[in-house]
Every structure is written in C-alpha cells, then in structure tokens.
C-alpha cells in the first residue's frame, strides 16, 4: 500500500496587502487527509498571515491550533493514522488509507484571523465530551486528548459543528494584535 502525498490545491489568494485594519483577505486550501500534510497546512496558514508581522508567539499559537484541528480531521474524521514498521518506515495503521480531503478556509478581516477546518469524515458523537481535556476516543494511539484544549488556549474563539456520518467543522479566530500582552507576560 502506498501513501499518496496529498495533491494540494491552493486557490484564490488575493489582496496580498490587506492591512491590519481594513481589507478582507481570504484563502482556501484543500488537501488529502494524510499525516504528511499536517506540517504543510500549519505552515501555509502561518505564511498567509506573515505580512501582518505577527510575533513569534502568535505564529506558534496559530500553527499549533491548525495542527491540532487538521490532525483531528485526519485521525478521527477519516481514521487515517500511521505507525512505523519494523524498519522504521512510515505506514498506515490500517491496510487502506481512507480517502478524504481536509479543507481549510482562512479569512483575515478587521485584523482578526478566522480559520475554518472542515472534513467530511465520521463526525463527533458528543462534542462536549470531545472537548474535555484528556478525553480521547482512541487511548491506544497514546495521544494526549488535549487537541481542543490547545485550540481553545491558543485561539481567542473556538466553535465546533459536527454531525455523525457527515463531518466536522472547526471554526476558530484570533485577533492579530497581541503585542501588548506579550510584553506584559514576563
């Protein structure tokens, strides 16, 4: 079985210089639900906001939140998780890679970054339960169950919409002007 490197389609990045305050800027990404695309997704979103001169903390926060949301879509939505074989090779934990796409939509408006990560995977049965820190439906994967907790901690706002069997959409937003609190933190 081969793992296909996702075919990433980038469409419609406009208004490159949308300033902090005013203009609206939007981008959309759609890629295969495979774990090698996790780093691509978070770096792409970070690059999208780079012209706003974000602080390192802001960039790290955004990357972590995107990484959590995309990883959730891949391993829970589409159940594509990976392990390593005897010789250190990356291979899917199941024999087949479940086909599916993860979609990211980013909107910059009024100095606020809105990120929407959606999949058409299996959905979440109980969203409140899923959002509890340390709760996980897959303890055998040795993950921490901190995904949603991290998204909440690193973004200003988090909203989850899901329907079992239909998919999940995670919406988060963050104000891109954190200079003040960064200085006061230490």
């Amino acid at each position, binding site marked *: 079985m081969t793992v296909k490197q996702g075919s990433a389609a980038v469409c419609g990045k406009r208004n490159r210089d949308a300033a902090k305050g005013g203009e609206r800027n939007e981008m959309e990404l759609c890629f295969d639900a495979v774990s090698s695309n996790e780093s691509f997704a978070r770096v792409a979103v970070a690059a999208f906001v780079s012209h706003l001169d974000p602080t390192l903390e802001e960039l790290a926060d955004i990357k*972590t939140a995107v990484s*959590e949301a995309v*990883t959730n879509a891949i391993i829970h939505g589409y159940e594509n998780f*990976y392990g390593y074989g005897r010789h250190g090779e990356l291979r899917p934990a199941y024999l087949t890679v479940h086909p599916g796409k993860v979609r990211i939509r980013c909107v910059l408006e009024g100095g606020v970054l809105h990120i929407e990560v959606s999949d058409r995977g299996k959905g979440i049965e109980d969203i409140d339960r899923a959002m509890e820190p340390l709760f996980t439906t897959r303890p055998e994967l040795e993950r921490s169950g901190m995904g949603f907790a991290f998204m909440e901690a690193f973004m200003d706002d988090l909203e989850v919409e899901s329907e079992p069997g239909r998919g999940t959409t995670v919406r988060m937003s963050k104000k891109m002007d954190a200079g003040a609190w960064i200085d006061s933190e230490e």
Partner: protein
Amino acid sequence: MEEFQIVDNCLMVRLPEEVDHHKAAYISAGADRMLLQEQVQHVVFDFEDTRFMDSSGIGIIMGRYKKIACFGGRVFAIHADRQIRRILTISGISKIVEIV
C-alpha cells in the same frame, strides 16, 4: 541511532525540529524499544532542535511517563525554549515533567 542515546541510567531522546502526529509514532516506538532493551530508569527529552510541538508531543511524554513511573522513573525536559515551555505548562504536563 543518534536520536536515542543511553547516558548512565537515562534514555536521552533528541526530538526532531517539528513534533507532530506525523513524527510521534516513530519517536514513541523508538523510545519504547530502547526502554525495553536497556534497563534505564529515567527519560530525558531534549528539545534542543525543536521549534514546533503540538499535543502529540504531550502524548509522547505522557506515554513514556506511564511506562517508567511505576519503577520510580522520572521524566525530564531539557533545552525547551519559551514556546515549548508554554505548551508544557498549558497542558499541565509540567506537573510530571521536570523542566531543566
């Protein structure tokens, strides 16, 4: 392998630049193999090269802690930069990991 080294009775795990789900299984599997082979007591995670970590990294640390805690083992984090420290603190795992 360079990533996993035995120093005295510690297993040193040198983490990659980016610790995410994609890399996590490899690190966990490698560390567990060493823990079984060599009878070490403690695990030290070296964040020297690490610039990015998400909750998968917390999972790696928690998993290793569970494996050695019952034998009196401790888990350490070294060379963690500010961002990594933040992640360790926010997740609450700093209660079981000693950040040096």
